[in-house]
């Protein structure tokens, strides 16, 4: 019985280390590919390659919106909820991103900017709005506000 136990345990360890060597060589190979692929690129360029569309979207917004701004984020893409806006928040900082409210942060239909709660906007110094809605709504833009009213609009399509 003791011999069987020994053999079983040794077999387990041998299988473990065979798989370990395989997986570590695989990861080493992947790391080498990563090195080759991103060699010479800046951090921002690497992020652009890895993160893709979301990062390019954030850069577009950053090029339009000044750093000291507060931004209202309006979108209804429920399949991506709690992700796109959170990642965008990371790349837009120090610009501050806000939801319309924290109970239902994703209004199904894009609200009219003129109808937004003026007190809510002024309390948070919100002077920009990002609207990101599916193509059928035709609303994918950045809007600059003044006293709660839209004064300039930039398309992001």
């Amino acid at each position, binding site marked *: 019985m003791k011999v069987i*136990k*020994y053999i*079983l*345990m*040794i077999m*387990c*360890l041998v*299988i*473990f*280390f065979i*798989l*370990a*060597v395989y*997986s*570590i060589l695989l*990861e*080493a190979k*992947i*790391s080498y590919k*990563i*090195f080759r692929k*991103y060699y010479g690129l800046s*951090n921002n360029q*690497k*992020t652009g390659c*890895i*993160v893709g569309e979301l990062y390019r979207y954030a850069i577009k917004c950053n090029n339009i919106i000044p750093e000291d701004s507060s931004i209202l*984020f309006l979108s209804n893409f429920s399949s991506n*909820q*709690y*992700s796109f*806006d*959170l*990642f*965008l*928040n*990371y790349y837009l*900082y*120090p610009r*501050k*991103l*806000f*939801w*319309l*409210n*924290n*109970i239902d942060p994703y209004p199904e239909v894009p609200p009219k900017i003129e109808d937004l709660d003026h007190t*809510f906007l002024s309390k*948070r110094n919100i002077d920009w709005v990002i609207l990101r809605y599916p193509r059928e709504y035709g609303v994918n833009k950045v809007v600059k506000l003044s006293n709660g009213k839209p004064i300039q609009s930039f398309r992001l399509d």
Partner: protein
Amino acid sequence: MNSLLKCFYLISIIFIAGDVITTILFKDKFKSSLPLRFSIAYGLGTGTWGLLIFSFSYLGGSINFRNLFILSLAFMPLFIFYSIKNFKTSTLKLLRYNFSKGILYYFFLLLIIISLSIITFRALYLPMHLTDDRTQWGIKAKILYHEGTIYAHDFFDPTRVMYHASYPFLVPLIESLFYGALGKIDDCLVKIPFPLFFIALLLFFYASQRRFSTNGHALMFTAMLAVLPIFIRDTNGNPSSGFADVPLTLYYTISFTSLFFWMRERKIEDLLMATMCITFSIFTKKEGIILWVIVTLAILFTLFLFDWKEMRNKVLFGGIFVVLPLILLIPWFHFSSTFTLGPWERDFDPSYLTYNHIHSHLYRIPLIVKSFLRMSLDFKSFNIIWIIFFVTIALSFKDTFYFPQAFLLILLIFNLCALFVAILIYPWPWWSNFLYDMPRLLMVNIPLVMYTISYQFHKSKFLKLSF
């Protein structure tokens, strides 16, 4: 160049602070070997700096590199004093190191070195690109660096886009210190502390096994831990990313192994070390509180079943483990109570433990069990570590249920049950994400699983490796 020097100073001061605190609290107890000294110094150093900077900001101080430098001056004279005092002993120990080893020794060492090289390379070469490293910890670190205070308005307005604003601040604080040293936001270099957490974990794992086993035995199981795919693959929570899972794993591992030795050898230093590290666990992730409660329950349960005679005595001492974290974390508990939580922040509320709520989620049970089984058999996440674990338990069934090793198994069972219940009662529609994130959720338990296997191997004398 200047920023890299500052970064080097920051890393040094983390180790120095940890080493000084170890000396003050434990004298030479955790300095018997370099791996132990390094890992404990890093664990206590990061935890202490996190708590210290948080308390400093809580009292109105500003979080920046200048203030960190001023605070660090308190540790310098003590470090120099203790280093001179202990110089002879540590130098002699280094000189006694034996370099002639067998082929297996070099094989295990090579695996560890390759694993650490991959992890460190990816951490420093690739910018943050996973989920929580940016959406949860990274954004908070940016805010702390930019605003220089924990009282930034961003944390208190529930309409500000923020994921788990009320989660503990240790990881973002450490990251913000690195931003402070670098003088800018750097998505790659900010990850310097994370491979170090993993190195500390491996060194501690090795050193803690050396308390009962040979060097070969300890090295083999450390190598097994180092090469697990969940640590070297580019997935959520790995040590190359900026997740809080590896720091939590380090603190938790130090905590449960110290408790294990406290039950075995009854040395108060082990209990104190466990208490310090569970405090840092609570300050690292919200799960830390659950782990703390579970560990407490597991201790009581183990003592009740296996050490009834000594139970009263140990429970009195064990009170330290329950009370001290509450005292040390008073500023954090007070601060976090001032948050206005959004509805989605209430992930795990005791109010979910109602019959109706649980009953409406029962359909999840087979899915959770299936996910766990699939994951444990998938060698791309855990190699065959779960299979080895179950085989070991089955082959040394009698030994497993002896005191104190039963504590490890009880703790693991409690942890798995807690994870199961957490997924079962999770109230939001995206609960199924957990099924695919199971390897990360189980990461904190992996050193426990490996430690149980290692101890069982030692007790059952399955193999004896000595170099």
